[in-house]
């Protein structure tokens, strides 16, 4: 599972109201949400982002509300993974549960610049910056979480356990 695309940089404490404002939460349709992803951080981002691109952010990405609409909007916008220095707790759970890849790597998040061409191996957590030639490795997930990720999210994981 390798993905490549361009990096979109965001700062620290990107909250879920920035990721998907509450005024759009009267819908939970992923395509509808994707149209407004990151809108209050960058009003035109949703129209610029290309399938396969990456969000690269600072500390505490996804802080604030528990709305799963946030990782759903990002995923439906075509983002292949979010790379951040750290993630807020509920966002972290939600991303794993719905199958949005997230990578915690303070070094990568610091060094990658807006527009850099990034390649990520989602199995090994290796992040290559094709523009600068630098490579980084993300924190591995604990085994149990990796199982949820491998199953394709929490619901699929529970289904396999039930069998």
């Amino acid at each position, binding site marked *: 599972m390798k993905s490549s695309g361009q990096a979109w940089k965001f700062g620290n*404490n990107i909250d879920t109201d920035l990721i998907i404002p509450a005024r759009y939460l009267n819908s*939970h349709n992923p395509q509808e949400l994707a149209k407004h992803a990151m809108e*209050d951080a960058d009003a035109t981002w949703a129209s610029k982002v290309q399938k396969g691109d990456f969000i690269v952010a600072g500390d505490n990405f996804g*802080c604030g509300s*528990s709305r799963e609409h946030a990782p759903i909007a990002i995923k439906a916008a075509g983002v292949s993974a979010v790379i951040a220095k750290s993630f807020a707790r509920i966002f972290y759970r939600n991303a794993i549960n*719905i199958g949005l890849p997230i990578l915690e790597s303070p070094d990568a998040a610091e060094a990658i610049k807006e527009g850099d061409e990034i390649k990520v191996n989602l199995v090994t957590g290796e992040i290559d910056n094709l523009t600068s030639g630098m490579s980084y490795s993300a924190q591995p997930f*604990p085994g149990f979480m990796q199982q949820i990720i491998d199953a394709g999210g929490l619901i699929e994981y529970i289904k396999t356990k039930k069998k």
Partner: protein
Amino acid sequence: MRQQTISEKILAKHASLKSVEPGQLINCKVDLVLGNDITAPPAIQEFAKIGVSKVFNKKKIYLVPDHFSPAKDIKSAEQIKMMREFARKYGIVNFFEIGCMGIEHVLLPEMGAIKAGDLVIGADSHTCTYGALGAFSTGVGSTDMAAAMATGEVWFKVPEQLKFVFTGKLNKWVEAKDLILYTIGQIGVDGARYMSMEFTGPVIRQLSVEGRLTMANMAIEAGGKNGIFEVDDKTAAYLKKTGAGKGLVYKSDPEAEYKQIFKWEASAIEPQVSLPHLPSNTKPVGKCKSIKIHQSVIGSCTNGRIEDMRLAAKILKGKRIHRDVRCIILPGTQNISLQMIKEGLMKTFIEAGAVVSTPTCGPCLGGHMGILAEGERSISTTNRNFVGRMGHPKSEVYLSNVAVAAASAITGRISSPEDL
């Protein structure tokens, strides 16, 4: 055996383990699963994919349509309808139609749904509120909610523990809200990321249970997984009054391990204001006084309890809301509205020129009932002041306690009740 905190003991008990330690991954049985009109619809969709024919327990699932209700538009009405139909289909007892609905985190404690020692998850980040009653309670997303509705279980990583000790005496006009805003201001919006926050000390023991609910409510604004308070006589009396029953009371062991212990002297704390756009951006009210406001919101799951309404009325009694300010009062539940009528608070508010809403989250999350236009500013007793939280991305929210929000509504600028 390992010396443990209250939070660790509740987690261990629900994982059927003797003890747990930070970092450990555990599977817990839950006592209550909560969802609202934003988070329940996706959970219901995910629940259908699991392929079970019934929910784990018809009485332990709480569905509260509070965010966009009474339905503000067609899409919101569809979401609430989906909850209603799901509740009927699966025989879920605790679905709250308007008329008995309230803001979830005000309603559940009030109706006795939560008792000490419970393990509660809710698809709402402010589910951490119930820690005030000695429960381990935390927010999750819709998929976790779906899984818990099917299995009655949820996975956790045992959090590290932080302790906050407040000593001394509260200054005049300082409320529980100020203690939590101060805490967030000191440690930052990720200061307790993934961690438990235990609040204790003589000042905490003096607080009412309502005040403790206000503090636990905002643990998430410091990134915390849960906030927790030791059960004392006040908690026991509250739990008895609500009919919850006392539950299981845990105390932190004397040698329990904390990642960090913070000790603060309450007399050094003034009423706090969180400036845009982070709850951690706090200043004493004295340093914010030239700031003009257009709106004052008093209510929400943070400060929408009867004690808050009484305090707001005490300040607004016989006064007039400033002509350039809209003052919106949002009691948390129907019972609180009724009590306000009995005590004459409604009259006070209306005579002062404030409007009183039916219980709803409303403007707290920029839903409806008081949205801000471009360039407008609101002082608010709610819990978040992120960009666009109450409306236009170029509007601003200033968080404060009840007395400051009420006083500011009168003067038109951020004010302390001392200024009246």
